[in-house]
């Protein structure tokens, strides 16, 4: 069966439908759907100065590619890229090379911040002296640096490469861990409009599946090879991802239903949690947090007290 719109050979069959698209029509479909997300959820406004968080992986380079196209076309907002070097040998060094090359080729300013400069050591070395799981250090550190550095660089929004699969996993993880308040801070655009301490996050790939995003990145030659974080295998997220992929293979459309159901209840979550957890400033670093000392400073302190294991 050919492409739905022409006689060309299809490169993808869309989830939960019989629609097959060729390369050209899939790229068109993908970009249109991302632009619709940006428009329908007002992710970008005139005059925005947007930081695009990139890892050099398929998702973030896809976002950067599409926002760059849109910026060049409309000239109504600015973008710069921001990357975090956690210090994961054999992985992040490779993906950062991708990121640097893409930014250089497309004339996009790239800012790189490392755990080593900001927290004193690489993630690889931190993990040698603690039993903490990689993602428990990496998640808070990365979020912290992206928010702090985005403010310093004068961004008013931060775009990330989160796709539909990532968001569906987070929603389910929050359910399983009874963490619903955290889900109130999900959605295509997050953050509090009038609180300058938090940079608002936008997720242009919110409705694009991992498979669609990878297909787009492949067709647009955005990647040389697909890399996988060596620490991701152990994570709770990895288990949820596997479960959802198994469900999706058996019951196509599952992930999409998780997202659409979630968006129906998100306004209720916002209403319910609007007065919860007052935001303080961390007593050590002065960054916003829900307790007296932020999670990042707690982890930094605990790592300082650890003696190197052999």
């Amino acid at each position: 069966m050919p492409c739905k719109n022409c006689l060309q050979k299809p490169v993808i069959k869309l989830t939960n439908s019989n629609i097959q698209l060729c390369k050209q029509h899939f790229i068109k479909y993908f970009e249109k759907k991302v632009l619709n997300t940006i428009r329908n959820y007002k992710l970008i406004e005139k005059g925005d100065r947007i930081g695009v968080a990139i890892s050099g992986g398929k998702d973030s380079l896809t976002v950067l590619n599409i926002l760059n196209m849109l910026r060049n076309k409309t000239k109504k907002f600015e973008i710069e890229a921001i990357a975090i070097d956690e210090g994961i040998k054999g992985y992040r060094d490779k993906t950062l090379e991708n990121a640097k090359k893409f930014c250089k080729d497309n004339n996009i300013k790239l800012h790189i911040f490392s755990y080593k400069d900001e927290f004193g050591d690489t993630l690889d070395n931190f993990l040698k002296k603690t039993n903490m799981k990689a993602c428990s250090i990496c998640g808070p550190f990365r979020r912290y640096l992206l928010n702090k550095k985005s403010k310093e660089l004068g961004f008013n929004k931060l775009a990330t490469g989160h796709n539909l699969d990532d968001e569906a996993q987070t929603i389910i993880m929050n359910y399983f861990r009874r963490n619903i308040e955290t889900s109130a801070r999900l959605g295509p655009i997050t953050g509090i409009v009038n609180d300058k301490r938090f940079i608002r996050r936008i997720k242009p790939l919110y409705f694009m599946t991992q498979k669609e995003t990878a297909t787009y990145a492949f067709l647009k030659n955005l990647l040389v090879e697909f890399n996988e974080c060596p620490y991701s295998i152990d994570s709770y997220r990895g288990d949820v991802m596997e479960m959802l992929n198994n469900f999706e293979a058996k019951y196509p459309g599952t992930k999409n239903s998780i997202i659409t159901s979630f968006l129906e209840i998100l306004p209720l979550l916002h209403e319910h949690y609007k007065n919860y957890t007052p935001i303080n400033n961390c007593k050590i670093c002065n960054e916003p947090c829900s307790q007296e000392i932020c999670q990042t400073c707690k982890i930094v302190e605990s790592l300082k007290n650890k003696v190197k294991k052999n």
Partner: protein
Amino acid sequence: MVKVFVERENKLIKINARTAKQIMEILKVNPETVLIVKNNELILADDLLKDDDELKLLSIISSG
């Protein structure tokens, strides 16, 4: 026989199969986690394969 390069395990194997869908069933690879590439082009899981075709299963797991 079809030759399949499994990126995630970095190995080339020979399999008796008519479609990529069958290959993924044999190798227990979830179709959600890979792109199927033949001659540097994407193909669908149900596309018919010929003897000596060479496929790549590219892993697409995102990890930020």
